[in-house]
């Protein structure tokens, strides 16, 4: 071995030893998952695993920013410590979730994780985070498997403030059949686990209630011209089209549906992926009267959140899960405050098991997205907190924000 290589190796060894000793570390005391000890002057580390680049980037970015609104309210300090808020981009894919999860899980200073953006990432990130003893809460994972205790994708310490598709699909189908009196419906999904399972639940419940599903079509993420799929659906002449997808594909469908011959009077219906400030203007005149399911939110609270968001970032939320993210952060902060043990010198001890237990015990939490109660599987949002909203002409003209509309119907 030559001399230079040897000295380099020696340097590396020494520095890694030093790194292992220094900094805030995880002690072995406390519960079986260990505890995080934060020395005076060290920050409390909360990490995010979100998709912040690429086509789904705006969704994850809104999640990060929604949580920042909550952190900003307390000036990024908790229990006399600064809050360190950083994270990893998970690229809305299983591989990205794995990579980001591995990095976050290997950092012993991380107390809690805000993640993930996409359900596909949660499948791979969640077991790693669970293994590390951390608690993770997602503002936008909706796939039912993630909190189904029978399913291998469900892990302890995983929570979400997003609505499980099982609730939302059912509410939408009941509204369409019982309230609107539609007897035939078609669905469109975009191949994402979110949309696919939502439309599947919708179709199942709608058929159960006695309705007929004329077609279950699909588009690609990135499609712009929806003429083909809409013309295809028109051959079944459904009374209602349910497309629980995201922007911009949802915008294109809503915009082009009323120009498609045979669909001029069809009722359009979407889900919370399209419940954003930008959707009505983007979809245009056609979207007036369209129905969207989403969280039942107190309007005054919502307005306050939107104002704070605008002040901080100079633009409104780019996607629909900002309030969910705000609530998720509030739950994390409340749980840390509840279980942290502060020594006389300011050292904070956070027991990982106790933190999880405190989050599971969240009950009657008045959040932006309704009253949240976390169940034993980690679902913090329940069906009761959902409502149906209708797009108005004022929303399209841009004079009234869709997010501040009053609920049209509640289950």
């Amino acid at each position, binding site marked *: 071995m030559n001399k230079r290589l040897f000295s380099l190796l020696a340097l590396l060894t020494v520095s890694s030893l030093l790194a292992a000793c220094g900094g805030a570390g995880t002690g072995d005391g406390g519960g079986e998952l260990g505890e995080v000890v934060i020395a005076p002057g060290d920050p409390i580390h909360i990490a995010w695993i979100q998709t912040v680049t690429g086509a789904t980037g705006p969704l994850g970015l809104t999640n990060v920013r929604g949580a920042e609104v909550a952190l900003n309210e307390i000036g990024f300090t908790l229990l006399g410590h600064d809050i360190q808020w950083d994270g990893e981009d998970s690229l809305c894919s299983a591989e990205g979730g794995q990579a980001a999860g591995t990095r976050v899980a290997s950092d012993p200073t991380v107390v809690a994780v805000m993640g993930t953006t996409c359900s596909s990432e949660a499948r791979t990130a969640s077991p790693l985070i669970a293994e590390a003893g951390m608690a993770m809460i997602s503002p936008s994972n909706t796939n039912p498997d993630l909190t189904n205790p029978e399913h291998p994708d469900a892990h302890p310490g995983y929570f979400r403030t997003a609505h499980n598709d099982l609730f939302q699909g059912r509410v939408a189908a009941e509204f369409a059949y019982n309230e609107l009196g539609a007897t035939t419906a078609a669905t469109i999904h975009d191949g994402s686990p979110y949309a696919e399972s939502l439309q599947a639940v919708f179709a199942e419940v709608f058929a159960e209630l006695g309705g007929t599903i004329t077609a279950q079509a699909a588009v690609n993420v*990135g*499609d*712009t011209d929806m003429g083909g799929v809409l*013309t*295809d659906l028109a*051959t079944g002449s459904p009374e209602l089209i349910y497309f629980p997808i995201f*922007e911009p594909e949802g915008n294109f469908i809503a915009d082009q549906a009323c120009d498609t011959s045979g669909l001029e009077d069809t009722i359009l219906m979407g889900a919370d992926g399209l419940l954003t400030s930008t959707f009505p203007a983007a979809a245009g005149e056609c979207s007036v009267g369209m129905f969207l399911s989403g969280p039942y939110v107190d309007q005054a609270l919502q307005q306050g959140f939107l104002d704070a968001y605008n002040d901080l970032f100079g633009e409104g939320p780019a996607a629909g899960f900002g309030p969910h993210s705000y609530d998720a952060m509030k739950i994390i902060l409340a749980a840390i405050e509840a279980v942290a043990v502060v020594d006389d010198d300011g050292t904070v001890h956070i027991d990982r098991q106790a933190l999880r237990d405190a989050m599971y015990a969240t009950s009657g939490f008045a959040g932006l997205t309704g009253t949240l109660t976390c169940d034993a599987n980690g679902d913090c949002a329940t069906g009761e907190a959902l409502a149906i909203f209708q797009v108005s002409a004022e929303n399209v003209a841009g004079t009234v924000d869709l997010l501040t509309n009053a609920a049209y119907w509640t289950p």
Partner: protein
Amino acid sequence: MLRRLRQRLEITDVFMWLFGAVLVISIIYGSFVTISSGRFTTRQWFDVIISGLTQGSVYALIALGYTLVYGILRMINFAHSEVFMGGAFTGYFVADALNRSGFLQSNPVLGLGAVFLVAILTSILVAVLLERIAYRPLRRAPRLVPLITAIGASFFLQYVFRGLYGSQFKSYPEVNALSGTIILGTNIVIQKTQLLVIVAASLLMLVLYLFVQNTKTGKAMRAVSEDKDVAALMGIDVDAIIVRTFMLGAALAGAAGVLYALLFRNVQFFMGFIPGIKAFTAAVLGGIGNIPGAMLGGIFLGLFESVGPGLFLSGLGIPSPNQLKDVIAFTMLVMVLIFRPTGILGERLASKKA
């Protein structure tokens, strides 16, 4: 003749021909089933054809930018999709401002003209900077280097625009003069916006073709694309011609951006990615480096994507055929590359050029 054929015939060729034959037969069978089932009315057929033509015209305009640059530099400018996005995204602010002041609705021709102008100028600016900063220093580097640089530049531009304009979707205003439809026959109804896109794109392509064929710059461009070094010996300023080529491609991309935005009305920093890939496909389909090829490839691709799923995939009993739009597009590309590697209109390239 026969002997030569026998010598050239290989097992892979036979397999490929069989594969092609199966594909063609299933397309014909699927189309036959759909048409005889009478699932779609004549009106609906024309609707999908028109929307395919419209989408195809936008592809064609972007594809020209890929093909022009490839023709001259033998490099694929993957950042071209961001040139398209930059124009459309910047044009939004002009369109929005003019709409708020009421000018766009009262003077739609002048208003849209201003939007086009700003979008085209932005695209040109982006492309010129791109060429100067990212590509020119690498002119003599191995061909893989500018290719990777182009991909990097593409990401860079995307996030620069996200930083500038935010990550929200912006929506172009609806121009009243363009809403509504024109009835061309009992079964042919075209939206005014679609008509505008098709007509404007055709005009632009015609102008480009005449420009390249008849002007001095056009002649110089063709000379540089034949052989850079000899062109330089003939007194052509190669760098200046390359910049002009980028400007030309960018102007078309900027115009395509506004047409796209009038049609689909949503702009965002990531909007260039998919149209860029599709337009690149169209350029290869038509024969990359060939100008009429890019036009033909774009329109062909748009039409196939729009009509294909309904025509032959639904006839074959495939569920939710429209999700397979991209499969059709890329299968078509693969088939063309197998049987005609230079593209539909591509000429056989000398080894030096290829």
